[in-house]
């Protein structure tokens, strides 16, 4: 990078206006990506600026370390956020995530970045009170950097290649941490075979969090309430059978674990109880499906039998469980998915 220019030399207003003029923002002002600031971000990674991390769909833009850094600077990130952003983009390139479909669909989902392991606390990524809301720089800017990269480098342009009917508030930013201090179970990333001591990014195309309020302390009752919320007729999950996510709040996690429920038990309960009969699901229109079977439902479901019960996912291990949220509230959250899979990758530190 030649012609190094100090950010002090840039007229801030002019630079912000230029970013709006180009269409390279998400509609909010961005931090001008000066060469010196971008270089700090690249240097932090220990990688070459030209290293190719991904060719992001739908347009296949080459996401080099430097271009990712430009988007991270614009989002307001710190250099230390770069490994999380790079890992998130790498995870989304896993074919199971179907990033092209995620970014171009008419649906209301958007990629969610979940950070688990020690790095979440080191970077102050919030998994406690208001964890899906505002107020934490790391959550706001890491999630925003990923979204800017998906548009600027991937070309998922709202209204053009991105055909979302409504879009999603999380299209600005959607990043949360799992709070291991309040998690009575093993961290989220251990489901993917990683060590508990690792730091990891999990990506998942999620709708907005849907609240599950439950004031008592009966595990079966709580899980019954949760299961009922998961299998509504309007939930896209009931028709496409992708992965789905449950965020258990600290109060609910506490009594579940004290009652002896492991995550595997919870998954199995939800798999068996979050079901609707074929008869009712016909109100949602004809089953849509793959070339061989005419529907996406599990093979054990006979789509011609009105009494057959269709689960929210194809198998219990497609229900993913994390723990987050503020203490004291009787709340958990459900994140409906879209039809593809969750992907988890270990964060490689510089």
């Amino acid at each position, binding site marked *: *990078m030649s012609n190094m220019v100090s950010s002090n030399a840039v007229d801030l207003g002019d630079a912000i206006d*230029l970013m709006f003029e180009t269409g390279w923002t998400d509609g909010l002002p961005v931090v001008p990506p000066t060469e010196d600031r971008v270089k700090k971000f690249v240097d932090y990674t220990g990688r070459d600026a030209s290293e190719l991390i991904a060719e992001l769909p739908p347009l296949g833009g080459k996401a080099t370390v430097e271009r990712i850094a430009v988007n991270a600077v614009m989002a307001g990130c710190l250099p230390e956020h770069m490994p999380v952003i790079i890992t998130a983009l790498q995870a989304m390139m896993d074919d199971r995530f179907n990033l092209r479909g995620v970014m171009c669909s*008419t649906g209301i989902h958007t990629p969610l970045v979940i950070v688990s392991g020690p790095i979440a606390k080191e970077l102050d990524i919030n998994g406690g009170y208001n964890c899906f809301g505002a107020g934490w720089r790391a959550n706001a800017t890491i999630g925003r950097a990923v979204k800017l990269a998906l548009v600027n480098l991937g070309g998922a342009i709202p209204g053009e290649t991105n055909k979302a009917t409504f879009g999603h508030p999380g299209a600005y930013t959607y990043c949360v941490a799992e709070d291991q201090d309040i998690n009575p179970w093993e961290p989220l990333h251990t489901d993917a075979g990683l060590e508990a001591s690792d730091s990891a990014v999990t990506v998942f195309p999620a709708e907005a969090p849907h609240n599950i309020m439950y004031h008592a302390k009966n595990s079966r009752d709580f899980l019954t309430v949760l299961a009922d919320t998961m299998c509504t007729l309007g939930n896209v999950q009931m028709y496409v059978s992708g992965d789905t996510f449950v965020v258990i709040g600290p109060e609910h996690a506490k009594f579940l674990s004290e009652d002896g429920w492991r995550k595997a038990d919870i998954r199995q309960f939800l798999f068996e109880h979050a079901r609707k009969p074929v008869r009712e699901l016909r109100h949602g229109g004809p089953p849509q499906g793959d*070339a061989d079977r005419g529907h996406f439902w599990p093979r054990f479901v006979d789509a011609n039998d009105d009494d057959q019960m269709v689960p929210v996912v194809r198998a219990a291990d497609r229900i993913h469980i994390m723990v987050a949220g503020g203490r004291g509230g009787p709340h958990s959250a459900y994140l409906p998915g879209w039809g593809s899979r969750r992907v988890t990758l270990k964060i490689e530190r510089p």
Partner: protein
Amino acid sequence: MVSAPGADLKARLSDMGLLSPVDPDAYSKWRAAPRLETIHGRVGGFLGNRKANASLLLQGVKELLNRDFELRDGIEVDKYVYSRPAADDIIDDLASQCDFVVTCIAD
């Protein structure tokens, strides 16, 4: 609208010491297929996305084109999964058999 930086924009970015967040090649490599002089008497492909209304729409388009342009043939095929690109074997078959292809998106 996102766009790749042209010469003027590149100069303005350079003047401010700013870097571009886009890959300019991503926006220039996608072009419309060459236009045929006419589709009269040609072979058309109709690539559906397996959504409920796609086959209805494509069938209607095919009938209109047949009526107005007397297509020599119309080949109908569906993608395997609506949210993913058409597989290479489908694209190769259409490319080898058709003079043009009509496809569809969304629901």
